[in-house]
Every structure is written in structure tokens, then in C-alpha cells.
């Protein structure tokens, strides 16, 4: 079954041009993050002879304020960036989906408690909360950063999943499952969740997009301890440490991480156009 499904998914992706482009961009960035660091060593020794060297064959993206190769930094940074955002996206979606499904299906007092919790969390403004948490913890660990980034976003997810479940649970086939003596947990996770998968999938991608914005922002404003190669750190240094933003011949140092951040966003958003198709059983045989 696994091989068949994978092949089907692939052919669906090829059909949808936008999703295909998106998945190619994502694939390229992921490969870069996985293989790049193995191929290119990161040398952090300053090389003052080539500070802000413009792009060339040797340094395709030029050099930074202490003469390090920018492309190498981007490649090493990709691993950190991806780990953090995928963790954050996963945590957001898993917690949000579980809370939403349980609140929506079980109803009653469970729903009341979970909905109230969601409402309370939603009243706290997102980015400030994240900044405060990051500033307090001063963590370097990707998992902790992922948790901080989803501190508030799971609640949006939970609320929208809950409302989807409310409309779903009155459907005939859920009624039928009840008549078959299927337990509540199995109805929720084996009957309702599969139907909401396209929704969950798209929200997963958007949660990643949000986490990317937020994590870059955290490094950019410098509330998290520097991890030398995160794209956000590069921006932070360019803006605030080295002053590259004010130096006309150093523009490439500012633009490089921005381009990769935008590229990753575009990849994610284009890929999200294919999610609906991937989960639509009518396109499968």
C-alpha cells in the first residue's frame, strides 16, 4: 500500500504545476540543509582580506563583515531554520488538532473547559508573548524554541478544527459509526481526522510559515542567544552589529538571507495548493 500511495501522491503533485514548483523549491532547500553541511565545511575564522567581497565564482553570494563566505552561512543556517520551523509547525498542529477534535466531538464540560482555555490563550497577543518567553528562557535548543513559537498558535488551530468537527459529527456516516459501537476516540481519530486532513495539512504549512516569520524575528531583534548561522542572526548582524545596511557595497549581505527566507515561504505556499489534491480520494484509484 505504501509504495502505491506514494506513487499516486507523486503523480498528483506533478499534475498540479504550482504545487510541483513549490515542492521542488522545498526539496532543494531541504537537500541543501541535509547535504550542504557535509560537503562544505564551516570555517569561522575571520578573513579581513575579503570583507564584504562582492559575489564572485569563488563566493557566489559574496562575503560578510568578517570575510566569511555568505553561501556557506546560508547553507549551515538552513538546517537550524528548518529544524525550528518544522518542530514549531508540528507542535502547533498536533496540539491544536487534538484539542480541537476532543473539544468538538466530546462536547459538554470538556468542550467548555478546552474552549475557555483556547479563548484565554487567544487574548494574549502572539508575537509579544513569544518574545517574552524567548527572552526569559534564553534557550538554544531547537525543541524549546519550537515550543515557544507554538505557545499561542495552537489555539487558532484548535478553534478552527473544533468548528469543523462540530459540523462533521452530525453527518450520517458518523452516526453510522456510533451505531456500529465504535468508541469515541476511534470515531475522532479514524473517522473524523481523515476527513479533516487537507485542512490540517494546509494549516501545518501555514503554521510553518508563521513560525519562520517569528523565529527570524526573534533572532533578528536578538532576544535569543546567537546561533551563529541562523538566517535571522545574519540579518541581525547586518542591521545592528556591522551596519551593513548603511554600506552600499555590503547590500548583498543583507539581501542573501532575505532571498532565502522569501524562497522558503514561497515554496511552502505554493506547495499548500497541492494539499487539497493529495488528500482528495477522488483523485486516487
Amino acid at each position, binding site marked *: 500500500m505504501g509504495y502505491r500511495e506514494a506513487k499516486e501522491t507523486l503523480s498528483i503533485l506533478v499534475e498540479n504545476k504550482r504545487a510541483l514548483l513549490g515542492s521542488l523549491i522545498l526539496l532543494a532547500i531541504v537537500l541543501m540543509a541535509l547535504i550542504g553541511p557535509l560537503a562544505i565545511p564551516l570555517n569561522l575564522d575571520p578573513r579581513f582580506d575579503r570583507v564584504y567581497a562582492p559575489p564572485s565564482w569563488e563566493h557566489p553570494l559574496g562575503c560578510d563583515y568578517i570575510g566569511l563566505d555568505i553561501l556557506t552561512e546560508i547553507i549551515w543556517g538552513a538546517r537550524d531554520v528548518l529544524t525550528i520551523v518544522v518542530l514549531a509547525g508540528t507542535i502547533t498542529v498536533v496540539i491544536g488538532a487534538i484539542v480541537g477534535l476532543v473539544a468538538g466531538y466530546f462536547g459538554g464540560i470538556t468542550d467548555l473547559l478546552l474552549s475557555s482555555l483556547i479563548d484565554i490563550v487567544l487574548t494574549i497577543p502572539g508575537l509579544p508573548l513569544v518574545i517574552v518567553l524567548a527572552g526569559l528562557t534564553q534557550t538554544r535548543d531547537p525543541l524549546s524554541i519550537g515550543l515557544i513559537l507554538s505557545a499561542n498558535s495552537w489555539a487558532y488551530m484548535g478553534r478552527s478544527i473544533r468548528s469543523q468537527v462540530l459540523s462533521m459529527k452530525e*453527518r*450520517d*456516516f458518523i*452516526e*453510522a*459509526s*456510533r*451505531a*456500529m*459501537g*465504535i*468508541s469515541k476516540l*476511534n470515531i475522532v481519530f*479514524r*473517522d473524523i481526522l*481523515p*476527513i479533516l*486532513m487537507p485542512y490540517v495539512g494546509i494549516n501545518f504549512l501555514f503554521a510553518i510559515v508563521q513560525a519562520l516569520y517569528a523565529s527570524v524575528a526573534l533572532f533578528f531583534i536578538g532576544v535569543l542567544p546567537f546561533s551563529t548561522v541562523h538566517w535571522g542572526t545574519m540579518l541581525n548582524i547586518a542591521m545592528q552589529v556591522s551596519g551593513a545596511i548603511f554600506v552600499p557595497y555590503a547590500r548583498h549581505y543583507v539581501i542573501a538571507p532575505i532571498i532565502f527566507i522569501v524562497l522558503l515561504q514561497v515554496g511552502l505556499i505554493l506547495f499548500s495548493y497541492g494539499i487539497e489534491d493529495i*488528500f482528495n*480520494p*477522488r483523485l*486516487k484509484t
Partner: protein
Amino acid sequence: MSQQESPTKIYHIADLTVEYYMRRLSIRAVNSVNLRIEKGEAFGIVGESGSGKTTLALSLLNLVPKPGRITSGSIIYDGNKDVLKLNGNELRRFRWEEVAMVFQGALNSFNPVVRIGDQMLETIDEHKSLDRQEGLKKISTLLEMVRLDPERTMRSFPHELSGGMKQRTMIAMSLLLDPKVLILDEPTTALDVISQKHILNILADLRKQIGATIILLSHDLAIFTEVVERIAVMYAGKLVEVASMDDLFLRPKHPYTLGLMQATPSVLGDVSKLKPIPGSPPDMFSLPKGCPFNPRCPFTIDTCRKVNPPLEEIPGNRLVACHRWRDVT
């Protein structure tokens, strides 16, 4: 049919009332129904839309949906089990292991994004009745029994099956756990006549092979003739007549049943001789005083407008709820 308690009753429904609560009003979808269903018989319940058939059937599984509530009565299953008093876990096991139901609109009873085979396995897993291999074998056997290609059907998503195929799959699914009672709610609605005939043949076969009690609900009298032995007629939430198939068809004793007979077209009959029942189905919010059928009944006398007739036993082992059953011919 004897009125005494006897161990052969699979269902003993006493004084069952189910009400749906609306904002201010409530509707009695099932109104003090008393009914005994014998073990192994094929029992039919006929009634027009809104007469309470489905609600009655759902109560047999204690599955009345909100805002409905069973407000009084008892449903004793197999002589000792009160369906309305089962707790969560007992109820889950009771459903589908003892009593299975093929829903009205079985076409919508499948999860659109899960393959048929997986949906059937889910039910087996849940009840832990068989391991996976045995489960798959059982599913194949049942799908063959309803004349479907097991391999193909199990791999299909619901939208890949036709209406008739879905209906048959649903029947196969209902038999997964060898239930003692099979409830079929309008199993042939929305199907073309060929598929209808097909389903009815399958039901007749199944009865011979499995020997389960079958409870068939429909508004279409014609489909009962193929399978049913005894039949109850429902009107406005009440049983108005219970009799054997032959008695009901040849000698109806309730004016409503008589009306149904005269309004049912036959293949060879003259359509212009059909006599519709005058008036329209009752407004459940404001039922007429007395017998609920009195405004449409040609036999109405004064008593009918004042006293709601109880379901009483009359000669010939049958029950009828009419003041004037002696005059109905």
C-alpha cells in the same frame, strides 16, 4: 400471537415514548408503542414519512439522536436485557454484535475518505471479534454473499461504488459481527427497481442462510411481500395495526391500512382506480383530538374525535387500534 411473556421474544417493547424537544414544543415521534418481535421472524414496519418508523428503529439500538429523548417505556432485548439501561461499554458491544442496522440512505453511511475495506476492518478491530486475517476473510465472504467482487470493493472509496453496490456493501457490513437482529431502514429507497429486486433477493437469501431476526422498515408496501411475515402499520407515532402479512394485505382492519392498500399501484392494475387517502399526513405539532387518523378517515364517528383508541387484540391473532375495526372491510 400470544400476549403472554415468552422466552422467544427477541424484542419486547413496552409503552415506548420518544419525544423530540424543540425550542418550546415537543413532538412525540413514538407514542406509547407496545410491540413484541419474535426471535427469527421477519418483521416489517410500514408508515409514511414522519410516522416515527426510523425513530422507533433507532430506539431499538438506544441511538435516538438529540434533541430526541426516550421519555418512557422499556425495551427488553432477548428476555433479559433492558436496552435503555445499558451503560456506555455494554451499549457499544450491544450495537452491531447483537443488533446491526442498515441506515436509511446507506449511501451516506460511508466515510468518503476511507477505503471500504478499512472501514469494515475498523468495526472488526473495535469489537475485537476477529484478528486481522480472519477479519479480511470474513469481509470477503460477506461481500461475496451480497454478490460483490471482494477485492475490488475493499480497495474502493465509497464514491467509486454505485448506489446499489453501496447498499449491498452496507448490508455486508451489518453482518460483520453476526448480529442476531438486523434492522433495515428503507433499504431500497433511492435505488432503481432492478437494484431493489436484487437487494430483496439478497435479503431473502440471507434469512435462509443466517436465520437472524430481520426488522424491515419502509413506506413501500410492495417490498414487504418478498421477505416479511408479520407487519406493523405506524401512523403519527402510534402503531395502528399489527398482523400477519397475509391478513394485513387481504383483510386490513384499520381504515388507514385499507387506505394504503387502495392507494398502492400494482404493475398490472388500472392506475385510474387508485384511491388516494384524502387529506395530508398529520401535523405532529398539533395532532387532532381522539384518533389521530379521524380527519382523514371515512369511518369516523363521534367517539373517534374524542377517544384515542388503544391497540387491542382482536380475533385472528392480530392487533388493531380502531373503534370501528368491525366495520372495516
